[in-house]
């Protein structure tokens, strides 16, 4: 009897192992940072990163696209740098496949993760185009039709036009195939862009790789909003959170005797007595996202003349102080942006209904059938990613099967530059 049970138990274990074929266990994986907050902030220790070419060895330039000429007059003078959309193209000498890289929430085409992905793919022989996120300041101002990001299908449509314009700007670039990737929110965008491409067929992407996508957009937004609500040790009536962190940094440098800012700084800092607690790191990560949400709230409001943050028709020149509008925008988290700007816009435009309807429409759920049936799409995710909620990984497992690779550690995008991840990405593209 006991034997039978044992056999059944072992059998079910083996069965489980088969279902989870793409899961890596922590020992085999070897990623050294098991704290998800630390991984998110510091990413991979320098000597474990993918081998990539130095920036100086990459043949790359930035280009401008004029996609929304009407913004030239609509936007105030101090927006001059974002009246045309900039992107970066790294080109190989001869014919090569091209990868589009879409940045994450609020991310610039030249943000750290986009740059490191560029180096990886360029080093492996791809042309690479880096694009800002539809939620970023420059994209909203220069490329977005409605400048109210968050409706994934519309954001994908904007992105698609940008990609077509990029291609048209380089007619002589010899491209053999098109590939697509994105990280964080950029991965969700990539999924919707790929879906759009099935009907428009401008690129016929050969493979599409989603790196750490949100599954339920609202869960991710709620998680990120919550990160700045942690109880941080050292914060009191006279000391703010920034003062606590700066105080720690100051003491750290005093003990060290000199200031040296390099890639290994954060690891060294976390080894020191001044190390940050999980709550403090969560607060830092949340802060970065809250800065994005205030940029989105401000820019969307201004472009659409909604008058929620900047009074409509308020005169703004290059000398105008924006600080008081910034103060107002800073008090608007993602949830506030969704409630005050996104939902009213969505209801007016699509005759939309409840919040849960919106969530279903903009999250990966909306693409469930497409993701199930399309073997060219794969997802890489981390078991300890901060933007996920319970059930999200279950959805990915059911939908993608063995096209989901789940890493045990890495936090949110902290392992994108890890050698093992880099190899897996290139392997997937190689097919």
């Amino acid at each position, binding site marked *: 009897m006991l034997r039978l049970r*044992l056999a059944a138990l072992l059998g079910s274990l083996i069965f489980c192992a088969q279902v989870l074929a793409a899961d890596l266990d922590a020992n085999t994986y070897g990623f050294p940072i098991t704290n998800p907050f630390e991984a998110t902030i510091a990413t991979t220790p320098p000597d474990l990163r993918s081998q990539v070419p130095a920036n100086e060895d990459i043949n790359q330039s930035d280009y401008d696209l004029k996609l929304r000429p009407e913004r030239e007059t609509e936007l105030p003078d101090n927006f001059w740098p974002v009246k045309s959309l900039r992107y970066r193209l790294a080109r190989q000498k001869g014919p090569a496949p091209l990868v589009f890289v879409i940045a994450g929430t609020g991310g*610039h085409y030249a943000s750290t993760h986009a740059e490191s992905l560029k180096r990886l793919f360029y080093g492996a022989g791809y042309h690479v185009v880096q694009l800002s996120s539809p939620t970023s300041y*420059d994209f909203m101002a220069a490329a977005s039709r409605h400048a109210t990001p968050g409706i994934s299908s519309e954001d994908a449509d904007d992105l698609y036009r940008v990609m077509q314009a990029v291609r048209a700007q380089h007619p002589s670039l010899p491209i053999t195939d098109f590939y697509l990737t994105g990280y964080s929110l950029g991965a969700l965008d990539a999924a919707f862009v790929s879906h759009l491409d099935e009907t428009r067929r401008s690129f016929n992407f050969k493979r599409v790789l989603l790196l750490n996508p949100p599954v339920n957009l609202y869960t991710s937004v709620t998680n990120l909003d*919550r990160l700045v609500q942690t109880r941080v040790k050292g914060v009191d009536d006279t000391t*703010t*959170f920034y003062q606590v962190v700066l105080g720690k940094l*100051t003491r750290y440098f005093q003990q060290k005797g000199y200031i040296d800012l390099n890639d290994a700084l954060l690891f060294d800092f976390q080894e020191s007595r001044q190390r940050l607690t999980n709550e403090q790191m969560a607060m830092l990560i949340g*802060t970065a996202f809250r800065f994005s949400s205030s940029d989105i709230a401000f820019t969307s409001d201004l472009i659409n003349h909604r008058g929620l943050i900047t009074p409509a028709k308020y005169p703004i020149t290059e000398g105008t102080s924006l600080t008081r509008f910034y103060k107002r925008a800073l008090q608007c988290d993602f949830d506030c942006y969704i409630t005050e700007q996104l939902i009213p816009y969505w209801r007016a435009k699509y005759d939309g209904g409840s919040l849960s309807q919106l969530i279903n429409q903009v999250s990966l759920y909306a693409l469930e059938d497409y993701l199930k049936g399309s073997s060219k799409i794969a997802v890489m995710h981390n078991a300890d990613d901060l933007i996920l909620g319970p059930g999200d990984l279950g959805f990915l497992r059911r939908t993608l099967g063995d096209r989901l690779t789940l890493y045990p550690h890495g936090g949110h995008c902290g392992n994108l530059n890890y050698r093992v991840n880099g190899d897996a990405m290139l392997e997937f593209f190689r097919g």
Partner: protein
Amino acid sequence: MDKKALLIALLLTSGLASAQEADPDGFTQPLKELKFNPGLDQREFERATLDALNVFDPFESWNRRVYHFNYRFDEWVFLPVVRGYTFVTPRVVRSGVSNFFSNLGDVPNLLNSILQLRGQRSMQITARLMFNTTIGLAGLWDPATRMGLPKQNEDFGQTLGHYGVSEGPFLMLPVLGPSNLRDTSGLVVDFVAEDQINFLNVAEASSNHPEITVLRMVDKRYSTNFRYGQLNTPFEYEKLRYVYTQARRLQIAE
């Protein structure tokens, strides 16, 4: 039988361990362990950030115009020149140039470190100057850093700060970027001092050959990573202002 017991025990404990760490999907719920503030006390981000935005900036309107001027100057003049410089000179020459000017900069570093009565630091900078000027061939090469003597920047603005002189109003300087009244005065003092000391005869040569000064400025831009627009926010000015102010406080305290 023992083996079986062991196996069961192993399975049970591993089951327990993973139950604590991950749910059936393998998700480890990273936010679960965090301590959160109670509902009414969750505005620390807003409180801290609004506080951080209070920087003494009476010339803000002028400063912002200079910021936009610098942004354009960078895009249309500085960066294209740096790109040309990178294109025509081999990497070893560029790093030689950077090291040479960096070695020159150790003269005011030493001076200010002495003024702040920092004995050990002054000796380290003296050693750096000696090694880099001699073995490093007038500073073209930087053996001192490899020998464990890292570069330590001290300028007169820091010296003033060290003795408690307050920052004064925030200033955006044309081409040079963010500063404040104290650091701008410091800049002038360092400039005059360098001119008077005339180390390696560079100051005198520069007055006859302005191209040396131009090269120095190009090298400075070449070796500075900052790019306007890189922060990608409509509030870059506010962020630069805050970061500059805090970075200087950190340098003075260190």
